[in-house]
């Protein structure tokens, strides 16, 4: 019995790995769907019970790997609160889209028994729903006609341990409030983390 419980309980470490993995596939999906990188850079991989497109551009792969490994460290320290994938115009550097992932810690209320552990399959189906939603967003997000680049921003707490020289403070690459529209997306949660997704995009009449 106890063995089974121990097997099912998700730890901070496990949850961080899960969330980081979701970011990897989520970011890849966005980069593919929004055509930030040529579509034939991507190949299909079975993940979460569906095919996900993942880049095979080595440089990009390594870049994401480096970024996400640090994000995972922050997740373990509980010091990252938000991850933003900003799609910006390559020439003017104006932000066009911001894919925002709020990272919230799920903490059981005081004196309350922790909620029943969430089965793995349920988490996976929630992740699957988000990824599917990202894909479906393409239908109503404005078509981007110019070449784009992306940037990953991490919102961390002041006390976060930041590797010197690797991560630098930056501006939020925000889209002016008058010109942006926001769409809230699905969320998923493990027993430790709760990820809420949102996309803001530049929309001008």
């Amino acid at each position, binding site marked *: 019995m106890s063995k089974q419980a121990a097997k099912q309980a998700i730890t901070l470490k496990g949850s961080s790995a899960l969330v980081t993995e979701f970011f990897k596939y989520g970011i890849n999906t966005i980069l593919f769907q929004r055509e930030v990188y040529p579509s034939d850079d991507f190949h299909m991989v079975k993940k979460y019970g569906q095919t996900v497109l993942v880049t095979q551009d080595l440089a990009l792969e390594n*870049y994401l790997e480096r970024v996400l490994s640090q994000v995972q460290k922050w997740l373990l320290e509980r010091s990252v609160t938000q991850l933003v994938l900003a799609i910006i115009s390559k020439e003017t550097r104006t932000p066009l889209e911001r894919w925002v992932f709020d990272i919230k810690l799920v903490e059981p209320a005081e004196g309350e028994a922790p909620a029943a552990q969430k089965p793995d399959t349920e988490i996976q189906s929630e992740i699957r729903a988000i990824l599917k939603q990202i894909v479906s967003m393409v239908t109503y997000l404005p078509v981007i006609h110019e070449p784009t680049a992306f940037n990953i921003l991490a919102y961390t707490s002041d006390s976060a341990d930041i590797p010197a020289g*690797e991560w*630098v403070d930056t501006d939020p690459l925000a889209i002016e409030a008058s010109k942006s529209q926001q769409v809230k997306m699905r969320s998923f949660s493990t027993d430790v983390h709760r990820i809420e997704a949102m996309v803001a995009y530049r929309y001008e009449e």
Partner: protein
Amino acid sequence: MAATPKTPARSRARSDAANNLANTFSNLNLSPTKGSSYKPSPNPFMTATTPKRPPVNDSLQRQAQEGIAKKGGLESRLNVVTIVQPPPSQTTTQAKQIKRSKSSSSVTRSDRFITTRDDPTSTLAQSQRNPSRPASPDHTARLADAAGVNANRRILCYHEQPPAPTTDASLNPAREYARPLLRPASLPTSTGAQTNKSRKIPTQPERILDAPGMVDDFYLNLLSWSKATNTLSVALEGATYIWNADNGNVTQLGSGLEGTYVSSVDFSNDGMFLGVGTGEGDVELWDVETGAKLRTMSGRQGQVATLAWNEHILTSGCGDGSIWHHDVRMPRHKVMELLGHTGEVCGLKWRVDGELLASGGNDNVVNIWDGRVGDVVEGARGAAKWTKRNHTAAVKAIAWCTWNPSLLASGGGTNDATINIWNSTTGARLHTTHTPSQVTSLHWSPHRKELISTHGYPTNSLMIHSYPSMETVAEIRDAHDSRVLFSALSPAGDVVCTGAGDDVLKFWRVWEKEVVSGARKKKEVKESGQGNLMGTGLTGGVKSGSTKTGRMAIR
């Protein structure tokens, strides 16, 4: 304390009045001096003591104190006009009016200079216009709150910019061709292998044999394992070797070829004879027992890349695309010619009952032929029963199902990398599955509903697929250091021998025989304790290294 609410109000009234009164410079110059007397009272204090007071007063007071009105006199008035438009909240205006009446101010409430600077943007604009004065912490907090920014957190990004897309569109066709050679994403396991959860499939070879000089050529077929005698024949360049799986003895057939190479080997069904195809187009017949060459059947122009036996008929596939039936008993050995390929024939398999023959070629075609030779006349030709053109690359991997005679599996080369399952009776394609890399050989398991495929660059893997779901049961990546080209199934159907250009043969026990019950299993293992496992007879001989990693040489 009681005075504080009043005084700013008064000073504001003055300054407002100053604003109002046609902006005379003298008045404007006066207002800061008046206001300066209140400088010692810091802003947080003010707001703390007068919580009801809207931020209006604060900013206005600062204006008065610092003479912002003078600086941005015209601008602020323009602002006033725009901002006043929405009516100020009732309660605040009322409170102000009461105060005004007490101080008997002559200023009328309808004045347009009453700035309702509730919106943080305007205060933000003010503070930006006047950067010399540091904003109070409270103000910053309010600002931050209004702008939706959390002050005590950092926004970070990686110091490098993400890499630019590496290519321009003109390279797309080139990448399309290179794509089959790109290595697929690694398997999520540490061993680089994926196996079934429900049963254990060893991901390491049970035995490795050195086989120096194995030709690294996709189109050849250099490995054959006799079902009857449990011997393995392997061709290394010009020489053919027979390895006895029961005792591990190795014998060489003849003295080897000079000036050419062996391009294919195949055991006859009874294991007594070995057909050997050469690069010069000869088909040789060897007696395995005595090690003597019985005859050479010549007449071919290109290399004989594949051979298949059916009783006394030895069928050969040639580089020119023709398939010949050689009757090994007859002096005029060529009894039939099958013309159905325009490219080199590299895959050839007889169905066990000898009724159908399947062939695959470098022209991406799979043909199924009627196996009846019938009355043989000079120049007899057969016609293909089915011709399948679904593959998009050379078809070398061909396998007949052992437990369902109508099933045929075929696998395509690098650009195809697809396994198709055909029904040879109806000609329908029943299943198709994509694999990460070229399919070099296929075998059906005799006692499981599964088939194994071997693959070339880039994964160099062994894959086991279930049938009919075609799901991957196991995948062993990098089974060899170079592409896995040849394979042969043991007589018991549990061990697969693979050969590759890295000069070794590896034996994989992928289809362990299923045991009925646990008790019986134990007993059986006890009985076969000498290492003669499950009837393969692959003991390798105790002398010649019985450890699993034991390494021996073919020559």
